[in-house]
Structures are given as structure tokens and as C-alpha cells.
């Protein structure tokens, strides 16, 4: 509850700041301060309970998993604001409003980690999405940004329609919006699985797959990630995607068990996973722009995160925590450097190592983590996802497919590393401050820390 209320309040605070404070440089400090406050509030709630005593009528249920996920999202956002806050100021003329929207997105994200009815799921998804449509279109003079925003809005609205239809059908089948309905409580003691409920859940599967950009519902992702200002792409690809996955996992954990007699969910999800991995990885290989490559790679990474929804066990939950952290850290790091580059094609990175060794080294570590090389956080993230699949005991061939595609992904990540270290060129970057470099080194250090000691993160979950 703390994270939901405080982030909504801080969003409003920033709206007032845009009226009261004219100096644009101040906003990102206020945003960072707000994130610290929310982070502290959320950690307090994890161990001692919420500041606010509100009867939610079981509409929200705050589990340890959800609260810990909030902590990860908030910490990632803090890092994002510290690293790229200065670039938010360059994205457009309404700096304080952009930060406001980021805080509203966080409010939606913390609803998604704690919802207990489909009603809250819907509100959470909408609060998460609508600010993103605006952030995507924030570069108003840029046609590509406009196109991306319109495309995202139309497709997002359509998927929201499917989500709502699914919720309505589930309600029709079970007579309740609650996430977990005791079978005995369903209207009139109907014994079997209702056709309506299953159809509704299929609709929900489609809508959630759209939100996490899993194939074949990924078509918006490359255009939107490419067209949006890079600084907001970074936010969308990390924090927002992780929050959507938390909701996906929560929804299916509660509902799949009852309906598995009617639908083979594992088969459906394995089809989605394989096509996501295939399309994401293979298309990323052919990209010329690093930004677009990262968009496809984020589809491929979504394929890996879907293993958590596929296996639905304790290892998968731990794995999703680890994966969300590893992926967010690495992607925020790579994007922070990408935003500073004058030229975002692969050629633009030529010879960066000679010109700016710190940037090149930290980018390399982040890219290695994305590829899942041992000694980086990405390795253990992928490892725990795959061990979750093995623990389910079925569909073990998926592991082989996933490892093969992870090998493919190494190709396009290493292309960037190769460009930075082994190619002659004159990589143009904007001015980078000393503080930025220190933060980048901190990100890289965290990536390596969680790669050597993943328990350092997971112990907090059980502590």
C-alpha cells in the first residue's frame, strides 16, 4: 500500500513542482528524493507493515514476493533516474510532467504486484500503459516518435479491449472477480470448468502476452522502442516489462491449476515461448541499429522470462526476481550509454574503447550479462529459469531450445563489443560527467556481484 499511495502522491508533488519551480535541473533531484522515500516506505512495509491502514476488501493482497518485487522495481527506477535523469530533460519541454508520469507508472506497477481481483489487474495495467503512450510521443517534433505513440496507443487500446473481454468472460464463468475463487463458491456449485472461464483466460493470455511483448503479439515492440526517445525506451523495456511479468505470473499462478483439465496451458505457453525466442533472436541478428537490436533482444529476453509463467513453481518465482533484476540493471546500463552516443548504429560504436574506456568496459559487462555469460547476473537468471523448467519435469526439450537461442543472442551482443574494441573508428559521444561514470561502474559492479553471489539478492527475499 505504501508504494501505491506514496508514488501517486509524489506524482502530484512533481506536477506542482512544474508550476512552482522554473529551474528544470531541480526536477530530477526531487524525483530521486521521492524514489528514496517510496523505497524506504516499501521496505518498511515489507518488514513492519504499512503506514496506511486501509481495508481493501481483499482487493489487494501484499505478499512478500510482491513487496520485494516492488523494491526491485523502485531501486531500478532510482538507478534509472540517477543515470538518465539528465537526458529526460532533453526529451521534450515538459520535464516535470514526464517524471510525474514515471511515478504514476510506478503506482500502476505496485498495483500489479499486489492485485487480488481482476478489477485491480485491469486498473493496474491501464495505469501502467497510459502514461507510456504519452512518454512515447513526448518528442513531438519527431515524426517517428508520433508514429510510435499512435501505434502503441491503438494497439494497446485493442489489447485492453481483449483484456476486458477476458475479465468479463471469467466473471461470467465463475461469478467473481477474485483471483482465487474456491471451486465450491462458484455460482450454484457448478462442478466442472466453465467454458466461459477458459475462453476468458485465453483472452487474458493474449492480452498479457501483448503487454510483455511475446510473439506473436510483439509487432508493436520494435517500432515503439525504436521510435520513442531512447531515455523512455530504457524505462519501458525494463521496469514496465518486469511489472507486467509480475502480474502475468500472479494471474496464471492463481488460475491455471483449476482450468488445466480443459486447456493444455503448458503446450500453449511453450508455443509462445519458442516463437518469442525464435523471432526475437533471429530478427535481432539482422539489425543495423543498436537501439533496434535492443528492442528485438528485449523480445527475446521476454521469451526467457516467460519460463517463469510456464513452470509456476518456487524456483520460477526466485528466477523471475533474479531475472528482473539482472535484465533491468544490464538494460538500463546499456541504454544509459546508448543515449550518450551520437550515432546509434553499430558503426557508431566503432573504437569507443580507445576513446572512452570506462563506457566501453561497463557496456561490455552489461551486454555479457544480457547474453548470459557466467560471472554476470544474467547467467544465474537464465540458469534459474531453466532449472525451473526442469523441475516441472515436462517439456525438457524447451531447455535445449532456450540454450540454442541464448547462443544466437551472443552473436548480436558481441557485435557491439567487437565494434567497441576491435574496430577502428571515431565513436562520437556527448559529454559525460564523472558522476555518470561512477554510477555506470556501480551498475557493472552490481551485475558482477549478482553474477558471483545471486544469493546476495535472494537472501533479502527470505530474510
Amino acid at each position: 500500500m505504501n508504494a501505491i499511495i506514496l508514488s501517486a502522491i509524489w506524482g502530484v508533488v512533481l506536477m506542482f513542482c512544474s508550476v512552482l519551480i522554473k529551474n528544470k535541473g531541480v526536477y530530477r533531484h526531487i524525483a530521486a528524493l521521492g524514489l528514496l522515500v517510496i523505497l524506504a516506505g516499501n521496505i518498511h512495509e515489507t518488514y513492519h507493515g504499512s503506514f496506511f491502514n486501509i481495508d481493501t476488501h481483499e482487493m489487494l493482497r501484499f505478499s512478500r514476493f510482491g513487496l520485494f518485487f516492488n523494491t526491485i522495481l523502485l531501486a531500478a527506477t532510482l538507478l534509472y533516474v540517477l543515470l538518465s535523469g539528465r537526458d529526460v530533460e532533453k526529451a521534450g519541454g515538459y520535464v516535470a510532467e514526464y517524471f510525474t508520469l514515471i511515478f504514476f507508472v510506478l503506482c500502476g506497477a505496485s498495483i500489479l504486484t499486489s492485485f487480488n481481483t481482476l478489477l485491480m489487474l485491469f486498473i493496474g495495467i491501464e495505469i501502467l500503459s497510459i502514461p507510456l503512450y504519452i512518454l512515447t510521443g513526448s518528442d513531438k517534433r519527431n515524426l517517428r516518435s508520433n508514429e510510435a505513440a499512435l501505434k502503441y496507443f491503438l494497439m494497446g487500446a485493442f489489447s485492453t479491449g481483449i483484456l476486458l473481454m477476458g475479465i468479463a468472460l471469467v466473471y461470467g464463468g465463475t461469478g467473481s472477480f477474485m483471483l482465487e475463487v474456491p471451486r465450491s463458491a462458484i455460482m450454484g456449485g457448478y462442478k466442472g470448468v466453465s467454458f466461459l472461464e477458459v475462453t476468458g483466460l485465453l483472452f487474458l493470455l493474449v492480452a498479457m502476452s501483448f503487454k510483455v511483448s511475446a510473439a506473436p503479439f510483439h509487432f508493436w515492440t520494435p517500432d515503439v522502442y525504436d521510435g520513442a526517445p531512447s531515455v523512455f525506451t530504457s524505462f519501458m523495456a525494463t521496469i514496465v516489462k518486469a511489472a507486467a511479468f509480475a502480474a502475468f505470473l500472479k494471474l496464471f499462478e492463481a488460475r491455471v491449476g483449476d482450468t488445466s483439465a480443459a486447456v493444455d496451458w503448458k503446450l500453449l505457453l511453450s508455443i509462445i515461448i519458442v516463437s518469442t525466442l525464435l523471432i526475437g533472436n533471429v530478427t535481432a541478428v539482422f539489425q543495423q541499429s543498436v537501439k533496434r537490436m535492443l528492442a528485438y533482444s528485449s523480445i527475446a529476453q521476454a521469451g526467457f522470462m516467460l519460463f517463469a509463467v510456464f513452470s509456476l513453481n518456487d524456483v520460477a518465482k526466485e528466477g523471475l526476481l533474479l531475472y528482473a533484476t539482472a535484465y533491468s540493471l544490464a538494460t538500463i546500463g546499456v541504454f544509459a550509454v546508448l543515449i550518450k552516443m551520437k550515432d546509434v548504429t553499430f558503426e557508431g560504436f566503432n573504437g569507443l574503447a580507445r576513446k572512452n574506456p570506462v563506457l566501453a568496459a561497463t557496456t561490455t559487462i552489461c551486454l555479457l550479462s544480457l547474453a548470459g555469460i557466467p560471472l554476470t547476473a544474467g547467467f544465474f537468471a537464465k540458469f534459474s529459469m531453466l532449472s525451473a523448467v526442469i523441475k516441472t519435469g515436462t517439456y525438457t526439450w524447451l531447455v535445449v531450445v532456450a540454450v540454442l537461442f541464448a547462443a544466437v543472442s551472443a552473436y548480436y551482443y558481441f557485435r557491439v563489443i567487437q565494434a567497441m574494441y576491435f574496430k577502428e573508428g571515431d565513436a562520437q559521444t556527448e559529454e559525460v560527467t564523472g558522476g555518470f561514470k561512477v554510477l555506470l561502474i556501480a551498475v557493472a559492479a552490481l551485475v558482477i556481484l549478482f553474477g558471483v553471489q545471486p544469493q546476495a539478492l535472494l537472501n533479502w527475499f527470505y530474510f
Partner: protein
Amino acid sequence: MGILQFLFWLLSAVALTGAIMVLASKNPVHSVLWLIVVFFAISGHYVLLNAQFLAVVNLIVYAGAIMVLFLFVIMLMNLNTVIETRKNLWMKAAGIISGGILFLIMISVVRSSADMVSRTAQLKEGSIGLIETLGKVLFTQYVVPFEISSVLFLSAMVGAVVIGKKD
């Protein structure tokens, strides 16, 4: 045949005729006008079900706001002349599949309707759709989603300002 039954059949006939005319009329403006007829008939059904709030909201939102929006779009885009749109095979196939899926749902509902009527329909004493009941539920049981949706509207408002304002 009681007055209620007579009204039910009348409204159903109006709604179905309207819906068919929406699809059948060549002129988009006529389609929109027929759609308004459909909405009015359905609002009548809501009143018969004692769901006054739903009836009024249906009129205000659909017959009022959304229809005006439709008409504006049609007139601004100058679609009121009859244009025969080119339909390719893919679109037809997609339409058949999605229509078929909806039809499947309808069949399933109709099949289990005898069972459902005994459990869901509130005859004669249904007060669930009255504004008083709705208000009570909204401000007690559903107060959290009600309050949280204000964040949603706030972000939409911020967005309208950010996108719409002149630089």
C-alpha cells in the same frame, strides 16, 4: 400477454431491426443513426431489468458522447459518400474466424442458459441495478479501485496537456 412482455418483444424487435440496418445501410451516416436506435432499445431493456443507472449511463455515454464522436469523424473524413471498400481474402478469413469464435461463445451460453437462468436472473425483486445500491457498493466494497482509478484519470489529463499544449 402483460405489458412487460409486450414491451420486451417490442424493444427486442426494434433493437434487432436497428442492428441489421446498421450493417445493411450503405451510407455510414445512416448506419450511425440506426446505431442510436439500437442503443435506445437496449436502454429500454435495462429499464425493464430494473437497472436504471445502466440505462441512463448507456444513453449518456453511448447514444450521446460516442455517437457524436462517430458522426464527427465520419463528417470530418468525408465518408458520407458511398465508397465500396476493397476487401481482401485475408480480411475475410480473419473476420470469419473472429466472428466464429464469438458465435461459439454464444452457442455455449445458450446451451447452458437453462441452467443459468435458475441461478442468475433476479425476477421481480431485483434491486441490484438501482442507483442507491450501486452507490453503497461503490463507496464501501469497491472504494479502493474507485479511488485508485483517479490516478488513471490524472495521468490521462497530464497526457492531454503534455501532448496537446503548444510548445
